[in-house]
């Protein structure tokens, strides 16, 4: 993988557009869900599911696949949308999010939907699972990578740091973690509630490589994942500075939109803004 060419960039933009509009539509229809983080992560997820991950949507249990663990399970709409457009399941199914009987549970469920590696939604747990997967890959002499998405607010859970400690201890350089550093949790700014900074220093102190990048820019996203794969001897975390709700102006960086579903007019306005953003180019 390397920095994408113009054609690829165009493709990724189109995917990110579809992912974003789907997130708004599904959460609006479900009347609940986490729209802000889902929008903020759409570029990273487009890059992962359409370029970076080595996977086969037609065969979600293919043994050689890269593993992807969503530790911050509440942003699962962005994962569902990415999976659907990648071909894991029909795009129409997205609109069943959170409905009775749907495979698209409010938080990811591995027993419901093939392609979900592990059920999450209770924060702080996915990273430890990813560590176990990376250890197992090493023991079995397998060469796929393990990717894990964590939230910044989630990193107030002690279990994140238990997992960080052990990944550093085992020098798991087949593990790439990225943090959605948007500074927003339900009740407000992470630094007001339970400050994480200096967060890069913390990971370095736990014996990790740390990469800092902007998570709403494809070139930065690719060069960060590229570098993560090349770094050896330690696990790597990418601290992606993202914008919650991006590119919807009234959601951008507003903590209310961490976990609130848009009402009819808000959804309409959000979709219009997303349309305008992509028509106008970046």
């Amino acid at each position, binding site marked *: 993988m390397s920095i994408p060419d113009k054609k690829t960039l165009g493709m990724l933009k189109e995917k990110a557009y579809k992912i974003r509009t789907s997130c708004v539509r599904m959460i609006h229809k479900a009347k609940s869900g986490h729209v802000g983080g889902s929008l903020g992560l759409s570029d990273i997820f487009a890059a992962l599911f359409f370029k970076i991950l080595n996977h086969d949507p037609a065969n979600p249990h293919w043994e050689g696949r890269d593993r992807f663990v969503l530790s911050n399970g509440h942003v699962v709409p962005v994962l569902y949308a990415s999976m659907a457009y990648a071909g894991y399941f029909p795009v129409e199914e997205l609109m069943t999010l959170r409905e009775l009987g749907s495979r698209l549970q409010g938080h990811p469920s591995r027993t419901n939907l093939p392609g979900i590696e592990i*059920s999450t939604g209770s924060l702080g747990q996915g990273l*430890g699972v990813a560590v176990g997967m*990376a*250890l*197992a890959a090493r023991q*079995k002499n397998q060469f796929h990578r393990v990717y894990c998405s964590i939230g910044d607010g989630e990193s107030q859970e*002690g279990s994140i740091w*238990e997992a960080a*400690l*052990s990944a550093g201890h085992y020098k798991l350089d087949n593990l790439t973690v990225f943090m959605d550093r948007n500074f927003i949790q339900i009740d407000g700014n992470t630094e007001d509630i339970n400050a994480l900074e200096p967060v890069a220093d913390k990971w370095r102190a736990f014996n990790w490589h740390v990469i800092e990048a902007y998570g709403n820019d494809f070139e930065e996203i690719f060069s960060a994942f590229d570098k993560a794969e090349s770094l050896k001897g330690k696990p790597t975390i990418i601290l992606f500075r993202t914008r919650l709700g991006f590119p919807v102006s009234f959601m951008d960086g507003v903590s209310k939109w961490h976990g609130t579903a848009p009402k009819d007019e808000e959804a309409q306005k959000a979709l219009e803004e997303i349309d305008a953003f992509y028509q106008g180019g970046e």
Partner: protein
Amino acid sequence: MSHYLDKDIFTGPKSKPTRDAFGLATSAMGETDDRIVVLTADVSGSVRADWFAAKFPERFYNMGISEQNMVAVAAGMALEGLIPYVSTFGVFITGRCYDQVRMLLAYSKTNVKLVATHTGITVGEDGVSHQMLEDVALMQVLPNMRVIVPCDTREAIRVLTAIKDMDGPFYVRLGRQNAPLVTSEDAPFELGKALMLQDGDDVTVIANGVLVYEALLAAQNFAEENISVRILNMHTVKPLDHDALLSAAHETGAFVTAEEHQCAGGLGSAVANWCGTNLPVPVEMIGMKDQFGQSGPAEKLQDYYHLRSTDIMDAVRKVLKRKKTS
């Protein structure tokens, strides 16, 4: 005498801690199955994980004092086709990481075997922080979780060996202190099938763990009084053996449960729940009565908290009276 019983059980039983089974069974399975991995949290000697580690260092993971992470890591390994046997003290492997067990094992149906070594009042001198008396309750309410409380080291080895080939999460409850070898070498283990150690038709004592031996002693004493006691070794709390309970309810009409655990949420609750919803018979319970323990030698604590054969005998007399008047 049932051929399921060790021949010396009433004359001078040999004793071993059931925790030895963890080291013995995992070391033996490790020889033939390289999917077996063992994880522990800085208690490798206490749980006998060091026996496995000595033979298979590359498949042994000491996760340090991080039980929540240990359970999460085990789930990740299980997803990759390994079979993690995870062991630490009962209080930490259930209570400390309950949410991980719920989400990553029970809900996610991962193939992880949790094996607690220090459980119940017989942990002894360490006191309340280490005497886990609520673990069976916590585990048996989780969907998909199976819960087993072996009565001796031999049974524990059979259990740990059998569950290797049963997909999905298990909780196996072992103990720290020496426990009499109750069962014979060739006694069977079948998940969810109680082992009848003695037949009888006046009353059924349903016991597991170290209380099985106490139940046998109680039944011996009753033989002189012409009271015929059936003894069920109910090693599997979940799934509970409904057939054995149904026969016992019809044929004996009175139950005494006995366990080294809170009666509430434990074997006693499980049996009473079955009775209430199927075939009501009077039930008396031996176990902890909504109370914590305290420090002391295991033997004395077992006396103090009424977890002895004499206590089972009292409960039997009481339940027989209720049976007559009901």
